[in-house]
C-alpha cells in the first residue's frame, strides 16, 4: 500500500466481490491442507479439509455473485492528509465515541468480580483475569479466553460499569468506520444509489442507499488509509 499520496484515489471492492482475495484464501487453505503432516491427528486433518472446503465454497459464491451482477461495486476513497485526519478525529471525539481498551475492560471486570461475586469465588476469578492479562496477546485464546468470556457474560447484567464500557466500545466500533466513510468517500460505481456530498462529507441519505455491509467495510478501509491499524481496527 505504501508509498501513497493524497493525490491518489484508492479503489475498493467489497470482499463479497473480491475474486482475487477469494482465490488467495483458497490457495492459502490448500497449502495448509497439503503441509498437514501424515502423523497429524484426524481432527487436525479434518479441520484443514473443512477450511479448504469453506474457502472453495466462498470462492464459488464470489464467482456466482460476479456473474449475476451488472457491474462490480467499487468505492473511491481519498488518502487522508494529516489535516484530514485531525478533522476526522475531532469529529469522532465530538460524537462521544470512545474505545474502551482491553486493559480498561479487565480492570472493570475485576471491580465487578469484587462487587457482585460471592467472596469465596472471587480469588479464582481474579486469578483467571490476571493470567489472561499477563499472557502474550497470541496466547489469549482457547480455554482461558472462554473463561474470561464467561466471567463477562455473568457481569454484563449484574455490574453496570462493565456493561457501559462494553457499550462504549461497541459504539466506537460502529461509529468510527461510518464517520470515516462519510469523510473520505469520494464516489462509487455500481453501488445502487447516486453519490453526493453535503459540505465536506458524503451525504447521509446517499450512504443509506448502499448495502450496510459495504459501508462498514469501506469505513474500515478508510481507517486503514489513515495510519497503522489501531488495536480496534486489527480486531475487525
Amino acid at each position, binding site marked *: 500500500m505504501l508509498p501513497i499520496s493524497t493525490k491518489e484515489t484508492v479503489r475498493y471492492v467489497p470482499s463479497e466481490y473480491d475474486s482475487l482475495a477469494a482465490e488467495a484464501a483458497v490457495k492459502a487453505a490448500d497449502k495448509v491442507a497439503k503441509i498437514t503432516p501424515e502423523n497429524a491427528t484426524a481432527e487436525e486433518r479434518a479441520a484443514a479439509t473443512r477450511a479448504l472446503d469453506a474457502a472453495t465454497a466462498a470462492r464459488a459464491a464470489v464467482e456466482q455473485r460476479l456473474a449475476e451482477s451488472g457491474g462490480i461495486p467499487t468505492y473511491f476513497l481519498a488518502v487522508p*492528509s494529516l489535516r484530514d485526519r485531525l478533522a476526522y478525529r475531532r469529529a469522532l471525539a465530538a460524537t462521544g465515541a470512545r474505545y474502551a481498551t482491553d486493559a480498561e475492560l479487565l480492570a472493570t471486570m475485576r471491580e465487578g468480580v469484587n462487587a457482585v461475586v460471592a467472596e469465596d469465588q472471587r480469588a479464582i476469578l481474579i486469578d483467571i483475569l490476571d493470567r489472561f492479562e499477563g499472557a502474550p496477546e497470541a496466547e489469549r485464546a482457547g480455554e482461558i479466553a472462554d473463561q474470561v468470556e464467561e466471567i463477562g457474560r455473568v457481569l454484563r447484567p449484574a455490574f453496570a460499569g462493565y456493561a457501559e464500557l462494553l457499550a462504549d466500545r461497541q459504539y466506537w466500533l460502529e461509529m468510527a468506520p461510518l464517520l470515516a466513510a462519510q469523510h473520505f468517500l469520494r464516489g462509487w460505481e455500481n453501488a445502487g444509489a447516486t453519490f453526493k456530498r453535503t459540505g465536506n462529507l458524503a451525504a447521509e441519505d446517499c450512504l443509506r442507499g448502499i448495502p450496510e455491509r459495504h459501508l462498514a467495510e469501506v469505513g474500515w478501509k478508510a481507517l486503514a488509509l489513515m495510519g497503522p491499524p489501531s488495536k480496534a481496527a486489527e480486531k475487525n
Partner: protein
Amino acid sequence: MAVAARPGHFEGGAEAADGSAWELFGERHETNPKLLLGQDEVEMVRLWRLTRGGDFGQGPMPEAGGVMDQAAIMLDAFAVMSAAEAELTRERER
C-alpha cells in the same frame, strides 16, 4: 530499514553462509530478510531519506505544501522508520 542501513549484513543468498540466522528487532529470520523486500519498500526508504535532509535541517516532503498536507499514513511510516534507525544505532553503540 536494517537492510538499507547495513547492506553488508545481508549479502549472499537466502541462507546465512555460516548456518546462523538474522536477528532483527527481536525477531529471528532463518531466510535472508533482503529477499522479502520489493520495489515499494526500496522506494519508501528513498523517500524517508529525502525527507530527513542533512546537517542543515529537514529535507523536502513527498507532497507539495506543508506537513499538514502530507499523507498521514506516510508520516506515521517515516516515524516508524526513524525509530527503527535509532534502535539500530543504539545496538551498534552497545
